């Protein structure tokens, strides 16, 4: 059995090594920093005034107050914090490999020609027009970040969000094909279709209302919080609320009128971010959304759905699982389609596979929308477990806006 890679050689090192590690790398996260400081203060017998939230606060960093419900605390540490990271990443924070920020788009727009599908839909046309399904290929390779960006630009169109339906493949055709007796559901065509749906689900529904749950292991205990959501994808508005196992709503997420509001019910604090609706989105071809690059950069990912921010992060992961699909399914050798079944009354494909690090993966995908209905990842070597499941779902139903009421709440203000 292959020995797990480990940097134990760095243990019990000389001070030069320790200095190098401490100078270059963070040893603790922000949440851990606060936990340890709290412990130090308790050891020192200090009062809780240090940690008290007082009125409209000016924070140098967000401070997550210890909560009564462990699951709530867990969400703030893993859910909301990770959600916060996710939000910052999508709301214009620059990263080396995600050219979805405004500066990148402003440059890219100069070079992108607006295209429409090759066949024009006229009032007389009675048949729907579809894009051709791209059969999956290994990611293109570039020697540099500049070259990778140029490759993506060549294969990207800027499409109006309101017209995104024009870029669908013939879902009905492929969904029926996959259920035909005698058809090889693990053919390149079949797997390319499933992969396309996962990476382009935002093309295939206008609204979604439902519930989901997920699994968290926190300090040795298992938790199964849930969320209710109603997403108006067409107008890029949405509302999600997160519920712990005691049925307390601990987090609410509002997206409308070019803003994102996250409300932490336990602490009574909310934060507001500006987020403009994406009228146009960059739409690279399926086979040109990820480019391998030579070191030191070696991956550039273009994710159209990342510019759509109307769903809280876990809800986004299920409804628009583009990045999860890239993470786990880009290597077609790692997974297979086991069959077509019914899940929540919807026709779904059951997938399973083994990821590069040995994790076992099971996924259920809605054949007609690409929504990820269920995900299970388990690694018996590392103990890593990730589980998410949609527990109810209605597609393309009317959605009424849920508006945020700040009464009695404290607004979080950040300073850099």
């Amino acid at each position, binding site marked *: 059995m292959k020995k797990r*890679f*480990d*940097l*134990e*050689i*760095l*243990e*019990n*090192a*000389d*001070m*030069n*090594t*320790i200095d*190098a*590690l*401490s100078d*270059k*790398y*963070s*040893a*603790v*996260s*922000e949440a851990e*920093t606060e*936990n*340890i*400081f709290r*412990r*130090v203060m308790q*050891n*020192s017998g*200090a009062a809780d*005034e*240090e940690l008290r939230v007082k009125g409209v606060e000016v924070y140098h960093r967000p401070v997550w107050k210890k909560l009564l419900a462990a699951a709530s605390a867990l969400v703030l540490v*893993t859910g909301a914090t*990770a959600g916060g*990271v*996710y939000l*910052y*990443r999508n709301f214009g924070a620059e*990263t*080396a490999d995600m050219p979805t920020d405004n500066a990148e788009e402003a440059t890219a727009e100069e070079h992108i020609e607006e295209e429409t599908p090759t066949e024009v839909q006229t009032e007389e046309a009675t048949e729907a027009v579809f894009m051709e399904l791209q059969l999956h290929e290994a990611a293109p390779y570039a020697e540099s970040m500049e070259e990778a960006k140029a490759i993506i630009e060549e294969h990207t169109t800027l499409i109006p969000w309101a017209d995104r339906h024009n870029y669908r493949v013939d879902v009905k055709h492929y969904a029926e094909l996959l259920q035909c007796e005698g058809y090889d559901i693990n053919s390149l065509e079949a797997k390319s279709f499933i992969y396309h749906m996962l990476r382009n689900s935002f093309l295939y529904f206008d609204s979604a209302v439902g519930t989901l749950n997920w699994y968290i292991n926190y300090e040795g205990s298992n938790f199964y919080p849930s969320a209710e959501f109603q997403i108006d994808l067409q107008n890029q508005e949405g509302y999600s609320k997160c519920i712990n196992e005691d049925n307390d709503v601990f987090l609410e997420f509002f997206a409308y009128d070019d803003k994102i509001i996250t409300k932490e019910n336990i602490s009574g604090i909310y934060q507001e971010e500006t987020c403009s609706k994406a009228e146009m989105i960059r739409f690279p071809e399926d086979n040109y959304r990820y480019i391998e690059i030579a*070191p*030191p*950069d*070696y*991956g550039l*990912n273009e994710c159209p759905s990342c510019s759509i921010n109307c769903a809280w*992060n876990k809800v986004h*992961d299920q409804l628009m699982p583009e*990045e*999860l699909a*890239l*993470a*786990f399914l*880009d290597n077609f050798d790692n997974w297979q389609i086991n069959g077509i079944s019914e899940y929540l009354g919807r026709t779904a494909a059951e997938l399973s596979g083994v*990821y*590069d*690090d040995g994790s076992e993966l099971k996924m259920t995908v809605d054949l007609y929308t690409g929504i990820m209905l269920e995900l299970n990842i388990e690694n018996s070597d590392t103990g890593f477990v990730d589980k998410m499941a949609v527990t109810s779902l209605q597609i393309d139903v009317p959605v009424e806006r849920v508006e945020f009421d700040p009464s009695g709440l404290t607004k979080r203000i950040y300073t850099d």
Partner: protein
Amino acid sequence: MKHSEYRKLLENDKSAAQRALFRDYLNYVYTIVFNRLRSCGSREDIDECVSDVFTDVFASYENKSNKTDDMKGFILTVALRKAAAYYHRLCRNKTVASLDDETAKDVPSEEDISVAAEQSETRKLLLRLIESLGEPDATIIIQKYYYGRNSREISEIVPLSPAMIRVRSSRALKKLRKLLADNDISI
């Protein structure tokens, strides 16, 4: 932060002074403690040891018993001693030879010194190779394979989703293995 600066701050606002000192040196202390206790302590043990270090440092400055201006040197000493104490406590039930034990090795031979020197060079090279992966992959590799964090924990340090961290760590590891092989380093 120097001792004199800390003292000044301590006189005006004790809480702010302690928080500032904590922020300045936490990464350093945690690295030292983790490096010592990685093989025998849990995350909880390490957190406890780190918090004990700062408790002692704060107490030392409050008691005004500490007069040295070399704050970093002082904190280093406290951290090393505390980590050593925790190490011996946690390894008490394991087979460990004490220096006081008659069966303990004598003064290390020249061969041991050269092994230690070689290890030091290997570590230096390893860190350089990891650094050559660029960011955020270097951080992901260190967080995952040295600090033992999972993707979700790493996503609190590196601004990527856990899914992307898993993709990048897998690819970064492949690259690192090749670099290690090219440099004849076996881990």
